[in-house]
């Protein structure tokens, strides 16, 4: 090999090292930024909900945590009306902080964000179902994209592997500027747009979850044939193996623990589901789930109410999301049967303590 060729080869080798080093360095810097100061860019729903809350002068009295099933299926305004019935004073502010593809992991993220803002509600209503506390986590890919930081990597590792996200997680962690490029550009574009105008507090509190998120909901009417079976395959696949010792179950335990420390009452609500969906819960899944709920309620002083079979299938537009009339019925039912008493007891206790 000639000296010139050797020199070219050495320089090429150094160029590759520089290329890889610089690329990785920029990506790691990007990942730090996107894990910390720019995290709100990654989690659009959370950012929008928290901005909505920040623009409100009142702090929430009741906080709803969960997924789109609670987001669409519970209306804070309706619950507040029921809680205020026959009760003097202000209508309570019920804040729906549910996020799409949510479970206890995303709920903990939202709850921590609320605590950081100094929010100390009197009551937290938390959605639960067997799949949301399963170690085979349906929503791991969403968590990875929206809220995962380097420090979450070790505790989530097993769940990521179980959800077959081990290769994707590398891409997400090592090329974050590519993964979140659209959010970054959107943030740049938003700088050019004017700030959104806000309505009065009372109007804002009555908004539905999707109105807050600025999502136009189109409900399929009449419900298409087989709509109740949509998505069941995925749930069935994840429920094939069931255990309640994953990251989501741990997050739920931590939420309960944090609430107890802050003197917040926690109500765990089994979310309404259609009969085909409930039929997927084999006896061993059901018993493991109920055992976990039992353990949680005993050790952390929270309550569990099971509303999974509370709504007829006609109220659903797919296997687990309610139509607006279903939302209204469920919000009233939950508020009347369970929340009103809890709220009154808690509220009276707070007033007397003051």
């Amino acid at each position, binding site marked *: 090999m000639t000296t010139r060729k050797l020199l070219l080869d050495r320089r090429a080798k150094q*160029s*590759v090292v520089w290329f890889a080093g610089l690329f990785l360095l920029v990506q790691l810097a990007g990942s730090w930024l996107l894990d910390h100061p720019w995290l709100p860019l990654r989690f659009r729903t959370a950012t929008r909900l928290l901005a909505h809350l920040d623009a409100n002068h009142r702090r929430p009295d009741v906080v709803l945590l969960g997924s789109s099933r609670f987001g669409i299926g519970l209306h804070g305004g309706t619950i507040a009306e029921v809680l205020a019935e026959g009760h003097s004073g202000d209508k309570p502010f019920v804040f729906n902080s549910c996020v799409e593809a949510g479970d206890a992991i995303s709920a903990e993220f939202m709850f921590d964000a609320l605590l950081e803002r100094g929010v100390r509600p009197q009551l937290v209503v938390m959605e639960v179902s067997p799949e949301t506390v399963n170690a085979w986590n349906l929503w791991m890919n969403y968590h990875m994209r929206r809220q995962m930081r380097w420090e979450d990597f070790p505790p989530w590792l097993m769940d990521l592997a179980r959800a077959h996200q081990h*290769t994707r997680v590398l891409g997400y962690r090592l090329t974050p500027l590519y993964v979140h490029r659209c959010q970054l550009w959107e943030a740049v574009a938003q700088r050019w747009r004017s700030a959104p105008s806000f309505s009065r507090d009372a109007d804002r509190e009555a908004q539905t979850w999707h109105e807050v998120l600025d999502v136009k909901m189109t409900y399929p009417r009449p419900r298409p044939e087989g709509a109740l079976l949509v998505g069941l395959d995925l749930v069935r696949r994840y429920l094939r193996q069931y255990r309640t010792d994953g990251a989501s179950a741990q997050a739920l335990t931590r939420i309960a623990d944090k609430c107890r420390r802050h003197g917040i009452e926690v109500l765990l609500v089994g979310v309404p589901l259609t009969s085909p969906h409930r039929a997927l819960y084999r006896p061993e899944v059901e018993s493991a789930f109920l055992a976990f709920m039992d353990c949680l309620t005993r050790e952390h002083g929270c309550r569990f109410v099971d509303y999974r079979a509370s709504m007829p299938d006609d109220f659903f537009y797919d296997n687990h999301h309610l139509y607006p009339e279903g939302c209204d019925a469920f919000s009233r039912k939950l508020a009347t049967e369970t929340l009103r008493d809890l709220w009154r007891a808690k509220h009276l206790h707070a007033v007397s303590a003051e």
Partner: protein
Amino acid sequence: MNFPTTQFLGFFLTVFAVYWLLPWHRARMVWLLLASCAFYMSWHPWLILLILLSASVDYVVALLFDDVKSLTWGRLLLFGSIGFNLSLLAFFKYTNFMLDSANSMFALLGVEYRSPLFDNLLLPLGISFYTFETISYVVDVYMGRFRAVRNPIDYALYIMFFPHLAAGPIVRPRDFLPQVERRKRFDWYRLVVGMQIALVGLFKKAVIADHMPPVVDPVFKCPELYSSASIWLATLAYTVQIYCDFSGYSDMAMGMAHMLGFKLPVNFHMPYFAASITEFWRRWHISLSSWLRDYLYVPLGGNRGGKLATYRNLMITMLLGGLWHGASWTFVFWGAYHGALLSLHRAFGRGAQADTAGGVVGVSRHVVCVLATFLSVCIGWVFFRAQTFGDAGTVVTRLVWPTVGLNLHPGHVLLVGLSVLAVFLGHLAGTFLSWRRLERRLPAPALGGALAFLLLLALLLMPEASKGFIYFQF
């Protein structure tokens, strides 16, 4: 598995690492073949049987040429093999086109008969490309330009080498097969050159071409709604899109092949700076145009039979070239349009071009020629892109006749402007700068930094959903 995806990146890095870690040359070739099969099967697992069938027939036929002494049997084998390959291509690509055309014909004649179309007929990925490769192999062996390969793995790799499998460049056996036999040595410089070529390709595809569909698609879908200015911009946008999409793919294929120690032919050479339509076809999809020249135009008689025969041969070659691109009459028209332009240039343009003047006059004349060629090519792309003749007619009418209508969003206008500028600057740099010479002067940190910057820019500017390559449908 599309090239600019993380899935493909993972695939390529694995193939690359294992390939260079294997100590034996034959094992590397087997590994590449397996990887190519996996790549093809990721599109459709069963269609690999088709490509294997086509390749096996040609492999056996080429070996038989050695044993066949009779000219008649040799020809029979050759035409049998070509016929077999073209029949497969015709069946998968043109069956519905032919049935549909027959239906239209029946309707025109007032006959009430409609032959049913095949609803689920899949177009095997890369069939147009590998069919031409197998044909060139059999013809070259028959003509004695190349000896038949004995090793089926070498031959299969020639057809299936994954960087060029889906959309070319169309590789000739004499260019590729000797490379398969040659032992490879890992070369850092070659790796860096391959990375440069592949990154430029990625930038063209992901940053320029993939941003054009939101401008082009709505205008070509309903051209009657848009103003002349919008139509001009959309036509320019498509001109940029098709160049960046296809040359971007070719660059990525070349770059990846380079990293694996193979050299694929250059497929594009600043085509929009061509000063004549003949020159355009020497710069655009070079592997196809040279294939058509060597295996169709020349066997038809080329320019040996006088002017009229030459024009006829040009028209036949370009008509079939148009049809090769897609099973639609608009593609046939596009081919005929280019055939007519080539014939016209042959008839009138060559004398004018020979009359070269130096200085400002010469440069001005050259610029005018480049602009005229560019304009002709742009008009040709209208027929290439439009779904129907009606749409193409509307677009051409509005290009010529100023018409009011919807205007494009200012953001889209800016996007098209920037993309045209990027392609223009790229052509200028490619024409007047020798990047290889320039790059050799750069210190390692600057070169590594430039490559990292190019990759970061491409990753940051990539649209949310990556579009498939236009030429994958051919």
